[in-house]
């Protein structure tokens, strides 16, 4: 017998330890940073795989050079993505824990397997980085394996947070199969939502490749121009496809939420239009950067896409609130602010930022004579 009762766990009886605006602000800020790192990592992993195939591991070809150049960043990018992912995972549990834990349990094994899979991808990048030169079977397949793993993980994360905002799906999944081998596949938003994110990651990676071209421009013009062109292609085509996917995603949303983006809510409609508009505007701007690598076109295009990502992060949050409107709003939990502990965090945070700045500067400067 299939149960489809609406079961929603109650939120924690312990009050929120800070005002909602502070927790939400930190959630969105750290999520934004995580998503940027994730875009570079996921897009980078697929670009590296593409370059590996195209170059057939010939280190002298442009693709071969780009393969090695981008690969060198991937282990650090993995570390950054994971580390920057921990903070939003922390804050989302404070604000939406009762929903996120439940959706995670619904897909228990898929969720649990995320971290062993990241370990495999992470070690694959290190292996490739430390074993360059000469094509072997393992080196042919590892870039694909790592890229597939990251793609799969992106699907699981997208699937989980999508399910977390739809508790009406909990009971059917969990009571029917408590073994944790289920995914939220029956929801029409599942694939458009995930694809929107993945295609966006490829586009953002394109901008990164363009920056690599711009930095290289004075040393090797030909190679730099290759990167500018290739990066632009990575950005432009996926962005155009993503506008279509974004529309499909919007149309797949429940009608009341879709209408909010279609004018019912001015703020959400504006964010959507601004996000999409700036991404479209970035296409000709970045096209110009391919012929004028040192001009202001690339920084401008990057800023436009940066604003688009910010708008999408905000919009994503608003869509979540719209989903949850009937059963959970953030004014429901009690708040008992721990000012002392908050002060401890911010003092550590400022010191941490200063130390990070010192570390990055020290490394980039390279003090060895």
């Amino acid at each position, binding site marked *: 017998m299939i149960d489809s009762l609406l079961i929603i766990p109650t939120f924690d009886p312990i009050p929120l330890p800070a005002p909602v605006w502070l927790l939400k602000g930190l959630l969105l800020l750290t999520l934004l940073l995580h998503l940027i790192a994730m875009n570079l990592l996921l897009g980078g992993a697929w670009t590296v795989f593409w370059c590996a195939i195209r170059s057939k591991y010939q280190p002298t070809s442009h693709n071969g050079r780009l393969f090695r150049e981008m690969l060198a960043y991937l282990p650090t990018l993995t570390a950054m993505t994971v580390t920057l992912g921990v903070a939003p995972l*922390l804050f989302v549990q*404070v604000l939406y824990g009762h929903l996120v834990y439940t959706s995670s349990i619904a897909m*228990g094994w898929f969720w649990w397997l995320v*971290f062993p899979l990241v370990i495999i991808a992470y*070690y694959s990048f290190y292996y490739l980085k430390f074993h360059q030169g000469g094509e072997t079977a393992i080196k042919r397949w590892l870039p694909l394996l790592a890229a597939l793993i990251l793609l799969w993980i992106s699907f699981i994360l997208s699937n989980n947070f999508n399910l977390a905002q739809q508790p009406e799906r909990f009971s059917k999944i969990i009571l029917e199969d408590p073994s944790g081998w289920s995914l939220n596949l029956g929801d029409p938003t599942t694939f458009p939502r995930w694809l929107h994110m993945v295609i966006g990651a490829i586009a953002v990676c394109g901008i990164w490749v363009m920056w690599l071209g711009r930095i290289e421009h004075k040393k090797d013009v030909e190679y730099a121009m290759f990167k500018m062109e290739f990066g632009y292609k990575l950005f432009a085509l996926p962005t155009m496809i993503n506008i279509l996917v974004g529309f499909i995603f919007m149309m797949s949303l429940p009608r009341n939420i879709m209408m909010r983006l279609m004018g019912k809510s001015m703020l959400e409609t504006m964010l959507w239009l601004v996000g999409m508009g700036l991404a479209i505007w970035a296409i000709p701007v970045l096209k110009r950067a391919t012929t004028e690598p040192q001009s202001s076109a690339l920084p401008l295009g990057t800023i436009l896409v940066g604003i688009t990502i910010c708008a999408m992060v905000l919009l994503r949050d608003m869509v979540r609130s719209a989903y949850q409107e009937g059963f959970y709003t953030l004014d429901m939990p009690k708040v008992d602010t721990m000012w002392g502990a908050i002060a401890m965090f911010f003092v550590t945070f400022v010191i*941490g930022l200063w130390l990070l700045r010192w570390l990055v500067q020290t490394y980039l400067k390279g003090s060895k004579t």
Partner: protein
Amino acid sequence: MNFPVWDVGFGLPLLIALVTIPHVMVAHFAIGGGLFLAIYGARARSTNDPAMLSFVRSHSRFFMLLTLVFGALTGVGIWFTIGLVSPAATSALIHTFVWFWATEWVMFFVEIAAAIVYYYGWDRLDATTHQRVIWLYFGAAWGSLAVINGIITFMLTSGTWVTDHNIWPAFFNVTYFPSLIFRTLLCLVMAGIFAILTAAFQNDDSLRSRINRIAILWTIPSIGLLVPTGYWYFSALPQSTKLIVSGGWTALKSAQHNLFTSAIGLSILVVLTMLTKNRNLNRVLSGFIILIGLNLFGSFEWYREAARKPYVISNYMYSNGMLVNDTTSIKEAGLFSSMLWKHSDQTMKGEDLFRAACQSCHSLSGYNGIAKMVAERGWTEEQLGQLVQRTGYFRGAMPPFVGTVEEANLIATYIATKANSLNATPESLTPKRIWDNNCGLCHTLDGSRPLRATLSGLSVADLQETILTVDQLSDAIPKFFGSDVDADKLASYLEAQISKREEGVSK
């Protein structure tokens, strides 16, 4: 009760152990190893010792690959796992300590960044700056431990937090400092044993011998200091926890035994490694050292978690996610009515009740497999129903059962059905087994709920009569499950056990 329970089949605690034990070992190495790199990097540079510097460099590569990838990711894995296994407890901890965790996250970030800059900085940074980076790494890594330690020890000794919700005494609770020092010593031990591992792969025999000698300085004194620190740690536990620890719970005793033998075994092997010059033997020994180190951590973490029973957060939440404060209201309403996750199909009521009340700790036939245990011990459904009602009295420190008699019987039926399907042959009913199946679940002769004084002086016949009417003594005691012959066997066994000890004392 509030969250669904994930049915992994083999047992949720085993899943936690699988992630936690390797992570904790590597995480402690990440701290101790950082200090090791800082000290010997500095020493090699100041004494112009290229062999040692080259070892530090190769050790740093191993260190980075193990701690930055496996260590960091399994740490995130613990987040994922505890959210799946104990969502209610994770939620409570996050609501209480989110700012501490956020603080720890900053340290973790600095730690990761410093590790990367240190490793890639060998050819980019001057010696002074490079050394500064590794010291910064060590500071951030140890700071991270100092924060997490407060949360872990809070789970064991929450103090007055349950009533006043005051965060600072909760964080700096009575086991905070003993645990911090205990763990810091473990970090030093890990630094030593992992140095032995990488040294075993050095071709330079004299360098390897030097590292092995150095490793002794990191391991043996630290292991020695673990004893008084462990005693301090144990002394800080509340009396109720000490009773569980000293209560004769066999599994806990064996963890304690494992802890001591691992520490001794580790010390012996470390010395042996120093004495042996053969490189291959060194490698074999270093492999064993790491395995024993893993066992040491496994025993320690298991012991700590077991000492926390029946709670997951002491005095606040039971290990099955039920709040201590909710027990009365659940008792009044009934367990099934208080559960969120249940099927509308009434035939699944027993399974739903089992899942909510028991499955956080018990599987059916895997780890802590209750159906397996029932099949092996030959318990009847009736006996099981009686026992389910009295879980709160067990020596293994289980949460109390707060359901009705009918609900206990439904759970018993569900488990018994699963036990029958296992087709296991029950163990033969030796007197010791009869004791274990009846009295021994809650009593010992001399430890927790001791019976010796009460039973001393009774004849076999008196004992047999007491056994057969034992349920009349208190509602907490179920009737004796066995035949008159079994009662007679148990009476003779008890009489022999008591007189044996008395003879020993009088001699």
